[in-house]
């Protein structure tokens, strides 16, 4: 997986063009991961409270 996109300037020097498109699914799944973790913790807390 790449973190960055690279290109060249007009002199042929390698430069950063931006972030890699590979990071888009990372951002998406990170959000999903936070949601899932929270749902699990929430369920566990309710389980303890109800017991």
């Amino acid at each position, binding site marked *: 997986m790449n973190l*960055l996109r690279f*290109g060249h*300037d*007009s002199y042929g*020097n390698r*430069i*950063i*063009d*931006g*972030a890699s*498109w590979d*990071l*888009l699914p*990372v*951002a*998406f799944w*990170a*959000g*999903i991961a*936070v*949601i899932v973790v*929270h749902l699990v913790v929430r369920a566990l807390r309710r389980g303890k409270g109800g017991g």
Partner: protein
Amino acid sequence: MASDNQKIIRHAGIDRAFHWVMAAIMLVLLATSLLPMLGVRFAWYGVHWVSGLLLTVIIALHVLRALFWQKPRGIMIKPSDLKAGGAGKYTLAQKLMHQAWTVAVLVAIVTGLLLLRKAGVPFLERDPYVRSMASWGIITLLHDLAALLSVFLVLVHVYFAILPEKRAYLRAMTKGFISRSDLAREHDLNRVDRGE
């Protein structure tokens, strides 16, 4: 003594309008930039930069209102926020969410405005040579990272907004008010009454 069912105005109409307009514009910005990357082809660039300028205006108005008509310290994180049930108007989580959005949106706006000179808009002479290509790359990288952070934040923010136990906050952002009993769950009502 105030009753538990007493409704407190949490967000004035103008603030709710700001929120929902900002949200809509953010979604348009994300859709116009990310859908083409996912293979959905349409003329996105014009909608994107126009939306970006609209967001800049709305954010500027929001900042002015917050600075001069509201108490901006109310959104800043304080030690008392770390205590359970010790929050004023906003909980620690809500303040963190606002901070994260502030970073994402301000970085996106500043870098986006700079990028207009390179990408080209009708009202500005297009001159990418005002900066080196390497500099444009860094600016683009920051713009990209702000967009990625926004994707993450949209998911998390919408999730928490629709959780049943947080529904009162969503109602407050649509109708404007919240009951004292809803607030009492996570907030120190004394601090709320003092306007902190």
